[in-house]
């Protein structure tokens, strides 16, 4: 379907089903039960899952295919957010022009940075992109937010004020981002028994865009262009000797992934019309690298999984506090209860970084291919379990 082979089509369908049914899948526990703490099916987090999914898919086009490790991708995300909020301020709260401009601006910005940074490769490239991103962060945080020329509104973050022009805004339209009148915040709550599921308009907009972006990524991966990018990764020198100039290919990949980042930034602003400078900080750039590696660099679905994994920890584990722990362990005798809380305490709440770090280490050490490799191993183990006995007999020993 859609010009994909059978395997890719089924992958796309799986992704589509997962994203469309996410409100059900992410809310497996009844509201009000003790396990409801682990439910992730509320609009804000679901939006984040898919938006960072888009960001990571784009990053993977650069890192997974060409092997160029950019440490400055958050700059494009931030630039996208700022352009989207400016569209809200100047035109109206409609998300279409905002998202369109964020992609265009991110493309131009990444062309500029890519043109300079791609003159070097390896660690020098990474450092150059990092330097550019930190420069953008400093610009956004203070230089471009002085009272005389306020482009970014600094620490407070760029937001829409009542006295902004908003020339296409009419009173009948909602006072927050909307798609031709459909507010991004409107949510339909479905109650089935003890369960409650949220269907949010903003989430479904992001989800549809992510599926399109995922499809585009598959096409890029399978195209001759994608093959050239892989060639850059496997042996750039040999590519040079065969008379090919890799720079146009790497630059194109850089700009494409920058546009993905800009799109993600625009969507973030569309879901929540505020753009903060922290979005551009180096930690944000590092986060997308982690997402990609955690999920599986160079694989199609990996970055999306990685993004979901990290966002889940950031939002769910950081909210568990000692009170909740005491509830969990309340069935134990007092002394043991306190002891258990004491043991678990460093890993929850503000310690979520620690938990994530440990898991990241485990994945990198035992599953170098990321979560995708874990899934593959599991799949192989399940498939081989049934026919394990027969396989062993028919398996031929190689001749010594």
């Amino acid at each position, binding site marked *: *379907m*859609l*010009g*994909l*082979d059978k395997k890719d089509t089924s992958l796309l369908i799986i992704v589509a089903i997962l994203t*469309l049914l996410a409100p059900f899948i992410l809310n497996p526990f009844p509201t009000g039960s003790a396990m409801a703490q682990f*439910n992730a099916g*509320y*609009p*804000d*987090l679901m939006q*984040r899952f898919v938006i960072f999914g888009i960001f990571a898919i784009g990053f993977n086009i650069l890192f997974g295919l060409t092997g160029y490790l950019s440490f400055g991708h958050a700059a494009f995300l931030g630039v996208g957010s700022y352009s989207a909020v400016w569209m809200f301020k100047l035109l109206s709260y409609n998300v279409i022009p905002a998202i369109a401009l964020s992609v265009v601006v991110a493309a131009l910005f990444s062309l500029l940075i890519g043109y300079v940074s791609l003159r070097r490769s390896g660690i020098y490239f990474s450092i150059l992109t990092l330097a550019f991103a930190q420069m953008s962060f*400093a610009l956004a*945080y*203070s230089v471009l*937010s002085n*009272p005389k020329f306020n482009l970014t*509104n*600094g*620490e*407070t*973050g760029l*937001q829409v*004020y*009542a*006295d902004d022009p908003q020339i296409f805004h009419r009173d009948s339209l909602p006072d*927050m981002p909307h*798609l031709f009148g*459909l507010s991004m*915040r*409107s*949510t*339909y*709550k479905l109650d089935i028994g003890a369960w409650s599921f*949220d*269907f*949010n*308009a903003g989430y*479904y*907009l992001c989800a*549809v865009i992510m*599926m399109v972006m995922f499809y585009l990524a598959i*096409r890029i991966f*399978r*195209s*001759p262009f994608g*093959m050239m990018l892989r060639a850059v990764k496997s042996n750039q020198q040999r590519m040079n000797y065969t008379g090919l100039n890799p720079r146009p290919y790497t630059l194109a990949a850089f700009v494409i992934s920058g546009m993905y980042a800009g799109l993600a930034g625009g969507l973030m602003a569309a879901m*929540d019309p*505020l753009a*903060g400078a*922290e*979005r551009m900080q180096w930690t944000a750039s590092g986060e997308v690298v982690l997402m990609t590696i955690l999920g599986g660099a160079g694989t199609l679905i990996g970055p999306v999984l990685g993004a979901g994994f990290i966002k889940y920890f*950031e*939002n769910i584990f*950081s*909210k568990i*506090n000692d009170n909740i722990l005491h509830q969990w362990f309340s069935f134990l005798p007092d002394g043991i209860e306190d002891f258990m809380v004491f043991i678990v305490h460093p890993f929850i*709440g*503000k310690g979520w*970084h620690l938990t994530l770090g440990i898991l990241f280490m485990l994945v990198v050490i035992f599953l170098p291919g990321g979560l995708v490799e874990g899934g593959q191993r599991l799949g192989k183990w399940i498939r081989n379990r049934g026919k394990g006995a027969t396989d062993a007999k028919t398996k031929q020993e190689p001749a010594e």
Partner: protein
Amino acid sequence: MSNNELTRRGLLRTGAVAGAGVALPTIFTASSAAAYTNEPTGGTVTLGFNVPQTGPYADEGNDELLAQQLAVEHLNGEGDGGCLNTFTSKALKGNGILGKKVTFVTGDTQTKSDAARASAKSMIEKDGAIMINGGSSSGVAVAVQGLCQDAGVIFMAGLTHSNDTTGKDRKKNGFRHFFNAYMSAAALAPVLSKEMGADRRAYHLTADYTWGWTQQESIAAATEAMGWETVNNVLTPLASTDFSSYIAPVLNSGADVLVLNHYGGNMVNSLTNAIQFGLLDKVANGKDFKIVVPLYSELMAAGAGENIKGVLGSMNYNWQLDNEGSKAFVKSFGEKYGKPPSNSAQTCYAQVLLYADACERAGTFNPCGVAEALEGFEFDGLGNGKTLYRAEDHQCFKDVLVVRGAQNPTNAYDTLEIVEVTPVEQVMYAPDHPMFGGAEASLGECNSGA
């Protein structure tokens, strides 16, 4: 590699899928039937405590969290009741709020606008929080206040000192108990003039972000009004940890006072650098060189250690204040946690009680009703003395403390001594003051999310 054959069936199928995708969002436009966002229906009501647990202001955030937990205990009738006994409004009975037991959820703002909004959103969307409280930075406060306005819940700001929070960024659903940069300046200026004379020349080092600018603007205006001259204002990047290169030119600038418009770690480092350069031992223009830190906190004082001796600054609250409310709060906080409460802890504690009290008086959790109950509310007995929640901008007006680094601290907690309690009349300003957004600034409409 790619397969681009276009068949009639394929096209139809693609069209159908795309059409369904486009049509999908329009199905979900209905909203729920509740009268306002997160109307509590069971026997409990959930408050959201959004404080920095990691990052540069983590110490303050954790202190806020302790105070908030204490407030919840007192509301539910546990512990010794704290300020419920001294509060002039007697609406709270120690049986929760409006008969519902108070529970709370916590989140980490990381002192980043984005993270703070994500955390507040998850409290509102997932946990059903009806009020958000806490925070230790003005950028975060303004960002979360905007979110609460849009979502239709009440925001009770924690530590936020920028004029903008209740100035140009004021919101109908947002309330601030903490004082602001203008008040700091208005309280400090007369004391500075009395202690240092009216003909000083000031050199400003200012953290290069929203709060720094409003702080510098306020203090420069207030000191110039009484005769001081501002020699120079140098903006320093927020991420700086070494201020030596900014301190060195101060000596040759002809200034005799250094004003450090810094907060948190910035202030600790810049003050330490200034002391290392021996600024306080210098004589300029025939006068002893002085240093001023407009906004103080206990945690900064502890960080700066010996260096704050004799340095003047201002505070919203200090545990050494001698009034009934303050004593009750310090006693309950001290007994539970074994240390006196900080500035930021007190403001969060007071905000939680004020919110609960407003709900009781309004007889509802509806944000519009609660906001109405808070507007123009006069009270006493929460530690700061007589206080007014002004209706026009949702800013609390109360006495401001001018403090000085103690010369001979007797223990780890009395590092600051109170120089003067500036009466509230002296720090009052008009709601349409130019530093607060001027005449255009408005609260907007109350939003209950219905």
